[in-house]
């Protein structure tokens, strides 16, 4: 029977070439957009160079201190002091990366102004993140402790500062009027990377304010776990620790701030928490709600093309009004006709989906080759494709069910009178 549905469906789609074309155009266009957006989202959230262990990492990237007497609050990354004194004493993490926010530094090279983005990190940063070194190696704990002025630079910086084909390791570059020795060169980072920078320097412990006993300080730390399974345990340990960190200590900030919020979040959670900073205090960061809202937006986005397709489908059915009457007279049940129509519509959407996938492959190639996102390479991967499949299925069902239902309610006698 299914084969029969299939054959009839193909025949019908071939017969009504204009309808088929219009429908396919709408479907493939919509799905192309869905796929491209999904590819961007996937690129943003899934692990990628150099943060490839993302699924077993927790991020401490926000520290909020609040006053319970007035509405004031400070919301920024945690301080080095907090990370060093409390976070680094946690038992569960295998490794802890500490990094500052990235800040632009203006340098002059051959009298040409260059703005580079600089980040300071600890030594374990190089173990948590999996950088590819094209030259040299990362700076060590020893070098950091000794206060050596060393840097790791990106390939892009190397080609700006040094001649083509010349090794950079051992050479010096000037930052803020000081000479730094290059210890390594890494492959360029995608601009959307969560640890993006052009130049990495040690977190120099000699800097005065790093030891200042404040909770808020603009750093981030990444807790690398042995396995994903340790995430709940890690969160629990983190929360217990955080609860014990005193607020009333005179040395810590202004004492009107008597409450703090700090969490060890998965990447998605920390993204969501950043998104609506201060709205949820829960450990889940409101990820469920976030996903719900995104899904609703997605459905709304699909709604318009779906309604359009529903419309096309209804006229497609009206066009076959008398045919449906004839089929019913000769023994087709309403259900058979409804299945038939839904199968027809699903085939249509899947063909449209396939065209959409093809189109998005091409568009992704173009986007990547234009490189307008600086080293970000989006791809139509398995995740994105399964999402596309799901989207076509939802799309096909949504747009087929209502017209099919209308069809099943059709009066045979009336249908036979229609000519």
């Amino acid at each position: 029977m299914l084969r029969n549905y299939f054959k009839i469906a193909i025949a019908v789609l071939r017969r009504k070439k204009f309808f088929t074309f219009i429908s396919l155009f709408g479907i493939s266009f919509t799905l192309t957009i869905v796929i491209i957006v999904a590819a961007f989202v996937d690129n943003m959230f899934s692990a990628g160079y150099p943060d490839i262990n993302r699924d077993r990492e927790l991020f401490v990237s926000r520290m909020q201190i609040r006053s319970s007497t007035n509405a004031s609050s400070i919301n920024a990354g945690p301080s080095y002091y907090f990370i060093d004194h409390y976070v680094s004493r946690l038992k569960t993490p295998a490794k802890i990366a500490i990094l500052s926010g990235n800040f632009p530094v203006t340098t002059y090279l051959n009298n040409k102004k260059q703005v580079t983005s600089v980040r300071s990190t600890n030594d374990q940063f190089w173990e948590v993140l999996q950088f590819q070194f094209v030259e040299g190696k990362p700076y060590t704990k020893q070098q950091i402790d000794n206060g050596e002025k060393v840097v790791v630079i990106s390939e892009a910086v190397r080609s700006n500062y040094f001649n083509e084909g010349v090794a950079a390791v051992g050479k010096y570059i000037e930052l803020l009027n000081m000479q730094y020795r290059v210890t390594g060169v890494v492959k360029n980072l995608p601009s959307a990377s969560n640890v993006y920078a052009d130049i990495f320097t040690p977190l120099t412990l000699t800097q005065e304010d790093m030891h200042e006993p404040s909770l808020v300080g603009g750093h981030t730390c990444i807790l690398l776990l042995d396995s994903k399974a340790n995430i709940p345990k890690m969160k629990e340990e983190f929360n217990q620790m955080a609860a014990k960190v005193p607020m009333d200590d005179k040395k810590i900030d202004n004492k009107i701030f008597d409450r703090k919020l700090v969490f060890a979040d998965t990447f998605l959670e920390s993204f969501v928490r950043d998104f609506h900073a201060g709205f949820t205090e829960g450990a889940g960061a409101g990820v469920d709600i976030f996903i719900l809202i995104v899904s609703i937006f997605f459905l709304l986005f699909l709604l318009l093309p779906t309604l359009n397709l529903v419309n096309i489908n209804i006229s497609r059915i009206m066009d076959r009004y008398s045919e449906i009457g004839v089929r019913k007279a000769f023994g087709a049940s309403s259900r058979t006709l409804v299945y038939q129509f839904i199968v027809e519509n699903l085939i249509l959407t899947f063909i449209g989906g396939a065209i959409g996938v093809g189109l998005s492959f091409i568009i992704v190639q173009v986007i990547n080759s234009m490189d307008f996102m600086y080293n970000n390479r989006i791809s139509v991967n398995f995740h994105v494709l399964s999402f596309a499949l799901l989207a076509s299925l939802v799309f096909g069902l949504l747009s087929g069910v209502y017209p099919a239902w209308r069809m099943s309610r059709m009066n045979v006698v009336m249908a036979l009178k229609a000519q």
Partner: protein
Amino acid sequence: MIRLQNIEKVYRTSAIETLALNSISLDIAKGEFLSVMGPSGCGKSTLLNIMGLLDAPTKGDIKIDEQRTDHFSDKQLAQFRNRKLGFVFQSYHLINDLKVLDNVELPLLYRTSSGNERKKLASAALEKVGLSNRVKHFPSQLSGGQKQRVAIARAIVGRPEIILADEPTGNLDSAMGSEIMDILLQLNATDNTTIIMVTHDEYMASKTHRLVRLFDGVLVQ
């Protein structure tokens, strides 16, 4: 074969109620060829549709083959129509996008039969109506008489016991009409198919076993 008892059909629209059939009782024997006549709007098509289970009566019982049909589900109705009934319409109602052979195969699609078997049966039905040489044509490439012959082939391909024909010759000139009439008479004579035919043509009606007349929804005679 078909027994109608006190059939009443009321069409309700927002403005008016039309009593299309008023207390119709009728017995049709197996193998009978019955013609139905009456002025336009008297309820002939309505009667035929009710006999064909395409429409339900407002009141009254229909028995076909000793079976009551009022409790049938949509699926059962579909199956019953598929097995027992064949329809021929005044305006042919062929599916224009399907070739002649595929049009004739249609009733068999809703049965479990293989593609080969369907082709064989459809070809045989087309042979019966003398159209073996037009299987690959589309309906638009046929004359009215040929179209109606295809429609008859479609009605008989599943070997139904009853054929309901609503003015099968209404759109045809008298020569082609006679051809169609001959095919129906032949079917009735050789296969013992029960036929109920609505017609406006006294001459056609005179060739059938029995004639009933409708006037304003009432059987006269």
